[in-house]
């Protein structure tokens, strides 16, 4: 009896809904799934297709420096060997990157200004590759990392004295916003314009 009343009631509700007439607009798309990771760019409310990162890259970089002690590892002249100190820093980088899988890292290698220009580019790349290989071995997914060499084009220290030039032999972990992948809710939509006179 109760079941019968329920069925009747739902049928009545459906009938009244359809009797009420048409929907003027299609339903808005389903909301984006909730992402568990902080720092993942969420769709901004009201603006489908526009991403607003919850945490900006500079904030995340501060966090990385705080947890790992530094975003830089240093090398001797001509060397691409990771010292124990560098390995400790990079292990912390790896843990941080594993905790933040939705942030990419650009591993930027540099050489000191007393290398010739071509060799400096090659040496920066070799150092960056050494760091990337260490991070991958520590569990960071390879697609989260890219490497680039600046050669000797971006010295960190303005002075070029014998005592300071070696400071430029370094690899810096630079965080990057991942390239936007087009999500279903980001697909461009054409909304029908409300016609004047229609309710």
């Amino acid at each position, binding site marked *: 009896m109760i079941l019968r009343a329920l069925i009747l009631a739902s049928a009545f509700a459906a009938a009244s809904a359809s009797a009420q007439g048409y929907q003027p607009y299609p339903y808005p798309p389903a909301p984006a799934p909730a992402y568990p990771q902080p720092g993942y760019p969420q769709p901004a409310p009201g603006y489908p297709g526009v991403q607003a990162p919850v945490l900006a890259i500079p904030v995340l970089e501060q966090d990385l420096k705080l947890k790992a002690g530094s975003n830089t590892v240093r090398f001797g002249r*001509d060397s*691409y060997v990771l010292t124990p100190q560098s390995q400790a820093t990079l292990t912390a980088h790896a843990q941080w990157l594993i905790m933040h899988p939705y942030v990419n890292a*650009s591993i930027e290698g540099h050489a000191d*200004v*007393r290398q*010739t*220009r*071509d*060799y400096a*580019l*090659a*040496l920066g*790349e*070799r150092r*960056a*590759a*050494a760091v990337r*290989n260490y991070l991958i071995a520590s569990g960071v997914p390879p697609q989260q990392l890219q490497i*680039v*060499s*600046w*050669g000797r*084009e*971006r*010295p*960190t220290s*303005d*002075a*070029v*004295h*014998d005592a300071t030039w070696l400071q430029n032999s370094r690899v810096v972990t630079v965080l990057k916003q991942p390239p936007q992948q087009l999500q279903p809710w980001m697909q461009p939509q054409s909304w029908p314009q409300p016609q004047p006179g229609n309710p």
Partner: protein
Amino acid sequence: MRFINSTSLFAVAAFVAGTSAQAQSGGQIVLAVPQFPTPRNVKTDGGETGVIGIQIAQQIVSDLRTTRSIYPTGPENLRHYTPTEAGAPLYPNWANIGAGALVTGYVQARDDGRINVVCYLYDLKQRREMTRKGFAVAATEWKRAAHRCAGAFYTAVTKRPGLFDSRIVYVAATGSRMQPVKRIAIMNWDGTDHSYLTQGEVTVTSPRISPDGERIAYMSFAGGMPHIRIMDADGSNDRQLLQSNSMSFAPRFSPDGRVIAFSMAVDGNTDIYVVDANGGYPRRLTTTPGIDTSPSFSPDGKQIVFESDRSGAQQIYVMNVDGSGQSRISFGGGANSSPVWSPDGDRIAFSRWNGSTIGIGIMSATGGDEKILTNGWQDEAPSWSPDSEWVMFQRTQQGTGTGSLLMVSIGGGEPKAVATPQPGADPSWSGVVQ
């Protein structure tokens, strides 16, 4: 007057100018350069052809005054002649001008808007033609035709290539050291016709001009990844050389300009490749796990000299263009890098790190016979003059880090400054078209 201007403004011209005052003595050939006639005075983009004829004669005189072996006179105070006489001089009429040789020629407007420039060199004593050149050029390009005529005359007299049509590409650096602004600049060998080819929005390095001076390969950080780009010498037609996303750098043209040798870095390993200058699929020449970079072709195009740290430190190696027969040629101590083969094929210029300074050196193309030419704090990036007599390089000042261009004679001596509007780096000196 023009000559005095050019020496005071451009130190490049100064180095060979010294002896022009002792004109008649010292085995110089006195060369008469009357103004070039024109069959019909026509207005063109570059001015009236009659005026161009005067300017070409002036330019030839100006070019040849910078040499030790030719003393040019004119175009003032010399008799005029007709275009017909240019190809068949009336020797008796030129007998009393006190010159040993005579330049004639003419300028003629073409139907397509360009001009014909024809020039001859005659030996007045033996009454014979020594050489001739003819060009169809845009009317605004008359100066290059004049440079090439002067170069041909210099070659006919001395059997050496003239520098007059050669050009120099370099990187002009402004801004701070940590945020530098780098632009590729081009100028004539004597510092005239200076212009910028890139505008400094991205960092660019190591421009290399093709031997004919028509194209420039360089490395750019555009898009965040260092890669080789190639453009025409006027900055147009700029494009990526390779279709690859790998990091590529250190480009260098082959002597015929058809092939570019370069370095590509993949997973921490840098090797040398060659590719067609129009792009295409690169061919790998070295396979060692060390860094192989800075390739430079021999003038016959059959060998490549390059640097490699496969032995532990950077040293200089030679291989055939197919990658076979790699052998080390630098055994003079220190770390040796950025080798460049001289246009006459005899020598290789390089830079040497001796533990505290970097200097420019030269060695025989087969190795040995090494000589260090400079003793700055950091002298690097050598580039040869077309006549293989000079090496231009970049000097970095200790402390300030400011770069400047200098050139040093292979005979040694104090380097001469090459005047540039801004601090300069990475010079590349073109060849000359014979």
